[in-house]
Each structure stands twice: as C-alpha cells, then as structure tokens.
C-alpha cells in the first residue's frame, strides 16, 4: 500500500535526511541545494493549469510518496546487466544503480590525455572549478522537477574532453533502477563538457531492472565548445510503472555540430524537456526523436531550439507510434533571436496512431524575431495505410505481422539516421523486440 500523501511534502521532509546524509560534504553546494529546495517549494508540482503542462497530468506522481533511492549499490554483476550494455561493454561505460555510481559494474577504457569520464560524486570533490559555474548559474530553475534535481543532486556522470581530443568509442552512461519495495526516487545530474575542437559520441541509457514504481528526475547539461562534433543518444526503457522526468540542456558554441537521437519506450509518464541553445555563429544541431507507447503510457517531449546567433541551422524530426490507450505530447518551440539572421530551422513531427483510443497533442511554436531566416515546420497524425497492409497480406503475411512490419518501417527512418553501428544495432534490437510484442490491436478493423 502506498500512502497517498502529497509528494511535495514527502520530498521536503526527505531533504532534511538527505542533508544529514551528505554530512557536510561539498559545503560550496549547500546553499545551492537549499535555494533549489526553496524554489521547489515555491513552485509546487505543476498541474494541467500550467501552460507548459497542459496535456501532461502528473497527479499519479504527486499522489505517491517517494523516498530517496538506496544509494548502496546492489549485488549485481556485469553478467546481470549484459542486456543493457553497449558494444559488449568494450567501450567506456559508467553504470549507475538507482542514481549512484557503481564502480564494480563500470568500465573505463584507456582514454586520450586529459579526458575525464568519472562519477559526478567524485568530480564534486576533484573538479570544483569546472563544475561550480556550470552548477551555479547555467540553468534557470523555473521547473519544479529541475529544482528538485538540484536540491538532491549528488551523483551522475561527469565527462570532460580537453581541446582537440577525440574519443573514438561511444561513451555509455547507463542508469539502472530497481524498486522492489517502496517507491524510490533518484536524481542523476550529468555534466558533459567538450572543449574546443573535440569529438565524442555519448549514449545515455535509462532502464528498469524490474517492474517497480520509481521516479527518475534527471538533468543533463552539455556544454559544447567551438568546432566540436557531438553525437548524443538516449535510450529510455524504464519500467512500465516508473516516472521519467528529465531536462537536457545543451549550449553550443560557434561552428559546432550536435546530433541527438532520443528513443523513449518505457515509463508510465515520461516528460523530456530538451533545450538547445545555438550560442555561436555557424552552429548546427539535429534533433531526432522516437517515442513508442502502449497501455496507458504517456510521453511528453518539450523541445526548444534557441537560435541565439546568426548563421545557425537546426533540423528536428520527432516520430511517435502510439497504441492502445496511450497518449503523447510534442511541443516543439523554435526561437530565432533578433540578431540571429540567416537562421535555418526545420521541424517535423509525425505520428502513427495504432488504436483509435490513442492520442497525441502536437504543437509547433515558432517565435521569430529576425527577418532574414528560413523556418519550416509540419506535423502529421495518421494511421497505418490500408493499401500497404493489403499488399503485404495479399502475399501471405498475416495481419499482425504486416502491421508490425509497417510500424517498424515508420520508425526505420530514425534508425537510419543513427550513424554509429553498435548504437544503431542496439536500438534496432530493442525496438524490434518492443514492436513485435504488439499483441493488442484493439479498436481498428
């Protein structure tokens, strides 16, 4: 039985315990944490009356009391987690259990000189100079869950690439959660800094080890220097009863390129806040997203691309596959500032509804303050094509297999956009598996 208490109050009372457990560590963060908690208290949990949360009702989260996840890593072995690891664990991989770094399960490969890939818990001790400005003033805490993350942050990943370095193998940040008893919450904070001219591919994975109720409130900050080239992949396959609320905040300097591929498959309620600031001339970003939902899942992607400087380009393509009674939200905001002349922005959201009980709210939001810009956006909502289904069936492929094949085909464009083979293969495998277990197709002929 879960006590129906106000989640806000449970977090506030948890905070005192959390502070005690930190036992005076990182005193330079104490006031940041306190301020963030105060901010959280003042903001309160969002409701559907808030413009930014109109279509996402978080009352199931608000109605659950979470305690901070047990920081003591489980007795898992590398073999236990092999279905979640990448490249058969041959690349550098930081593994987190319920938000806490697990040294046993992690692998750190030989890295170019000066590259740091460590836990944030450790970095808070060793890299204060780099972290302090990033933690103190880079994020506006106008979002309750982001404020909550700041209040409780203590671990996560820290990745730093010095100027001109390239890490060839993907860097995998794997967040595993397990909640067999009470609902738990974890607050990973990831800081990724790429200095001028460096290159890396970063994979963030979130997965549930069981079907428990837990809450992941994560914040990832990515700071991209001039001329950097970054691939960023996110594979979310949390437990079906979990809640996944995240902020991904990216700031790009001039002539950098950033390519993001986000795949959301799990979670009861998922909210991805994704902000990219094109903060230097000539920066380019590509945002690809795929969300696949069924049952009563709800997934909300709120993206903002901020063209703050001239000559920047952005391409965004989000695709959704919604089945049964699931729902989705896509809110794609593109801002072109006054000085951001010669901006080029293209945004597309395409949705496939596999059941007449599934639904999607899609809202493009263009705010253009410059005059010499190219901006295009479009959204579609459709069903599987009857002619295509008939063609496949007329060749002997049964209805369910034909539906799966066409659904997979709808998603395949997103897979093709992933250029790193092992990442593509893993996502392909997970996706195939997910789609072929599409047992129910109620509500359609």
């Amino acid at each position, binding site marked *: 039985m879960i006590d129906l208490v106000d989640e806000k109050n449970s977090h506030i009372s948890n905070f005192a315990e959390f502070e005690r457990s930190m036992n005076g560590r990182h005193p330079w963060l104490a006031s940041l944490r306190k301020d963030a908690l105060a901010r959280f208290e003042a903001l309160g949990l969002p409701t559907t009356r808030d413009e930014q949360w109109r279509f996402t009702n978080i009352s199931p989260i608000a109605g659950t009391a979470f305690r901070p996840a047990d920081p003591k890593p489980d007795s898992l072995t590398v073999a236990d987690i092999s279905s979640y690891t990448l490249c058969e664990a041959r690349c550098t991989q930081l593994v987190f259990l319920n938000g806490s770094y697990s040294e046993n399960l992690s692998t750190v490969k030989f890295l170019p000189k000066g590259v740091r890939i460590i836990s944030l818990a450790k970095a808070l001790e060793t890299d204060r100079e780099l972290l302090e400005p990033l933690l103190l003033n880079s994020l506006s805490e106008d979002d309750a869950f982001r404020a909550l993350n700041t209040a409780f942050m203590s671990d996560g990943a820290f990745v730093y690439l010095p100027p001109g370095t390239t890490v060839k193998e993907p860097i995998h940040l794997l967040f595993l959660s397990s909640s067999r008893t009470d609902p738990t919450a974890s607050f990973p904070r990831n800081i990724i800094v790429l200095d001028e001219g460096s290159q890396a591919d970063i994979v963030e994975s979130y997965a549930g080890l069981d079907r428990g109720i837990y809450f992941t409130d994560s914040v990832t900050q990515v700071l991209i220097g001039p001329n950097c080239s970054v691939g960023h992949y996110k594979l979310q396959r949390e437990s079906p009863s979990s809640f996944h609320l995240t902020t991904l905040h990216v700031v790009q300097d001039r002539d950098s390129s950033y390519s993001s591929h986000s795949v959301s498959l799990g979670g009861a309620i998922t909210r991805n806040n994704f902000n990219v600031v094109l903060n230097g001339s000539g920066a380019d970003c590509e945002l690809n997203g795929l969300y696949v939902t069924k049952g009563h899942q709800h997934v909300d992607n709120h993206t903002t691309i901020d063209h703050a400087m001239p000559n920047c380009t952005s391409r965004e393509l989000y695709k959704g596959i919604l089945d049964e009674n699931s729902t989705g939200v896509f809110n794609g905001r593109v801002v072109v500032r006054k000085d951001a002349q010669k901006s080029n922005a293209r945004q597309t959201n395409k949705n496939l509804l596999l059941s007449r009980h599934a639904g999607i709210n899609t809202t493009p939001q263009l705010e253009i303050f410059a005059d010499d810009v190219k901006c295009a956006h479009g959204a579609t909502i459709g069903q599987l*094509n*009857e*002619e*295509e289904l*008939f*063609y*496949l*069936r*007329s*060749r*002997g*492929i*049964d*209805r369910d*297999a*034909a539906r799966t*094949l*066409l659904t*997979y*085909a*709808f*998603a*395949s*464009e997103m897979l093709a956009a992933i250029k790193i083979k092992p990442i593509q293969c893993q996502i392909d495998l997970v996706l195939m598996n997910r789609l072929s277990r599409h047992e129910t197709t109620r509500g359609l*002929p």
Partner: protein
Amino acid sequence: MLEIRDLHVSIDGKEILHGINLVVNPGEIHAIMGPNGSGKSTLAKVLAGREGYTPTRGKVLYNGTDLLQMLPEDRAREGIFLGFQYPVEIPGVSNMYFLKTALNSIRKHNGLEELDAMDFLVLAKEKMKLVDMDEGLINRAVNEGFSGGEKKRNEVFQMAVLEPKLAILDETDSGLDIDALRTVADGVNALRRPDRSIVLVTHYQRLLNYIVPDKVHVLLDGRIVKSGGKELALELEEKGYAWLENGTGSKPAVMS
C-alpha cells in the same frame, strides 16, 4: 480451380459488379478485357480479399472451398496471387525482407521448412533472371521509386518466387516497353503448368500474342457480356467495345 457464381460486389455502398459468372479450370489462361471503370480491378481485388470490397450476393469457390470467407493472407497461402495494377510503394520495408517473409509464411502454411537468408537469396537471384529484373531492386524498399515498368516486373518476380496456383495479373503489361513486355510474357509462360491457372486483365491484344489465352471475356459495366476464344481479342481490337453495349441485355457502360 475457380468458380464464380453471380457475384455482386459493392464499394462504399455502391454496387460495382452486378453478377459475375466465371469458371477457370486448372491449367487454363483466361483474359479479361473491358473499358476503363468496368470493374476489372474490382474483381481482381475482391478475389484477393481486399477489405471494403463487399460481396453482397453470389459465391466464389476456390478448389471447392468458399473463398470469400478467407482472410487475404490465407488466400495467398492457399495459392492465390494478385499482380496489382498499381503496386503500392512501401518505404522502410526492404523488398528482400518482405518477399522472404511472404515466402516463408506460405511455406510454413504448407508444412515446408522456412528458407534462411542465404537460400532465399539464391532462389531470388534465379527468379530475377527469369524476369530480367535488375538485382539492385531487391535491396530497395518495396516499389519505392521504382519506375512503372520496374514495378510490374517486380510483381511478376514475386509471382515467380511465390509459385501460386492461381495468378490474377491486373494489367501487368501496362507501362512496359516492347522488350519488357516480351520478357515478362516469357516469364509468365515459363510459369505455365497444368495445375496453375492464370487470369490476365489487359487492355491490349498484343500481350495475348505472347501469352495465348484459352478464353477471353469482356467485362462491361460490372458484367461479363461476352466470352469467346482468343479471336475475340482481335475482334475487340478492331471494333472496340461499343458494339457490345447493345443487344446483350446490358446497360451501356457510360452514357455520353
């Protein structure tokens, strides 16, 4: 093989076929000709089981069983093949994967072992040769960006791989150049067998020079108004369809 009795078919509540009677015996080739909009494709698709094409009266027996009760996939597994007049493009689904899946579902249904990717490729290559199809097409998405002629060749190629008992080819000759027509016809002839029947829907007598039919039927305004031997096709070529619109008891197809 196929026996159609007094078949009436409606689409969206509008009757398109008004009582078709047709018997196709094993090994026979039948040609169906008729003006645009007369219902040829409707007949072809209703035999393949297209949803929304509702039989309202009549019966279709396929090797003695009630065809209209069967799902499209089961018809295919039992040996019915429809070569589409307008093959649909399916982006994101590879031609190879699609056809391998199709063949294996049919094989499984018939108690045969499924082919693995290697064995399938060998078979596919052999059949592509038969219809002189560019090997590159097998690795592309189903029909995506195929030229009109390539799409038709792909249909005959699929037929060659799936080896149906009853093939209904809906204007497979339209859009083919003269050489391609020859190749496709040769391909179809190579598939001719005493136990395999073929129904050809065509507008052109020319095809029937290459694939000689046992019977020719004229479909006009949802009814078969005349049947005959291969010489009927020549007569149609010469006279058109107008002479059939009167004196046969059928309504004119188009009032002008």
